[in-house]
C-alpha cells in the first residue's frame, strides 16, 4: 500500500482543530439555541438529560481548567471519530467480502 502519509497528515490536522483551535470557539449560543431563546421555547429542552454522557458540553471531567478540559475532550473525540469512521468503513467492506466468500 503506497503513500498512506495523507491519512496521518489528515488526522494530525483534525487533532489540531479539535484539540487546539476549538479553544478559540465562540461561547455564544448557536443558531438553534438563539432561536429557542428568542421565541421562548429553550426551557422545553429536557433539564435532566435522558442519559449522562461522560463528557457533557465537550469538557473532559475532573479538570478545573476549562481550556484544558475542552482541548482534551476535543482531542479525544477526534480520535474516537477517526477510529469509529475507519471501523465503520472496515465493517461495511468486510461484510461485503464475507458475502462474496460465502456466495
Amino acid at each position, binding site marked *: 500500500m503506497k503513500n498512506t502519509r495523507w491519512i496521518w497528515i489528515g488526522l494530525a490536522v483534525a*487533532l489540531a*482543530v479539535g484539540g487546539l483551535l476549538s479553544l478559540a470557539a465562540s461561547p*455564544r449560543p448557536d443558531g438553534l439555541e438563539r432561536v429557542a431563546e428568542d421565541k421562548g421555547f429553550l426551557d422545553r429542552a429536557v433539564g435532566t*438529560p435522558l442519559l449522562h454522557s461522560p463528557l457533557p458540553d465537550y469538557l473532559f471531567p475532573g479538570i478545573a481548567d476549562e481550556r484544558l478540559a475542552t482541548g482534551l475532550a476535543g482531542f479525544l473525540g477526534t480520535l474516537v471519530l477517526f477510529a469509529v469512521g475507519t471501523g465503520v468503513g472496515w465493517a461495511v467492506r468486510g461484510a*461485503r467480502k464475507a458475502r462474496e466468500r460465502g456466495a
Partner: protein
Amino acid sequence: MHIPDGFLSTPVWVAAGAVSAAAVAVGVARVGKNMEEKQVPLMGVVGAFIFAAQMVNFPIASGTSGHLGGGVLAALLLGPWAGTLIMTAILIVQAFLFQDGGITALGANVLNMGVLGSLLGFAVYRFLRRLLAGTRGALISAFITAWLIVVLSASLAAVEIALSGTVPLRLALPAMAGIHALIGIVEGLITAAALAFLLRVRRDLVHPLCRPYAPQAAGGAA
C-alpha cells in the same frame, strides 16, 4: 443546530428516526457494494475532521454563533451514502459521549444534517457542477450547495419543532432560516476552501463524481 431532547413530540421523533434508519440501512448496503480500499481510512479522516471542525463555533451577528455542519463536505469526498454514514457516526458520538443533540432527537438530527446534507447535497452539487464547468465552477457549486443545505436543514428542523407543537411555524421558520442564511455563508466558504485545497494537493481523494466537470477531455479551466 443539534436538536436537544424535549423539542420534539414522540410521533415526530419516531417518524424522523424511521426515515433516518431507512437511509442508513440503504447506505450500509450501497457503501458495502461500491467502496474502494482507499475509502476506509478516508472515512476515518473525514469523520475526525468534521467532528473537530464542528467544535469551532464562529461568531455571527447578534450574539449568536454557528459551526460547520459538514454534510456536503463529507459527500464531496466520500459520496452520498458513505457521507451519510459518517455524518450519522459523528452525530451518534456527539449525542452519547458529549450530550450534544438529544437521544430521542438523534433520528431528526441525522435526517437534517446527515441525510439532507450528504444525499441532497450530493445531488444539488452534481447538478450545479454540470452548469458551472471547470475548477472554478466546482468551487462555486460547492459554496452554493453548502449554503443552501444549511438553510434547508435549519428549515427542516424548524418544521419538525413546529410539528411537535413546541413553537408556531410562522415564528420558528423565518428565524431559523434567517440566522442560518448567515451561518451558511461560512459553511459555504469552508466547504469550497477544503475542496480547493484537496483538488490542488490530492485530487484523487475527492469523490470521482465530484471532481470539476470538463465537457472536453482537456480538463477544467482556471
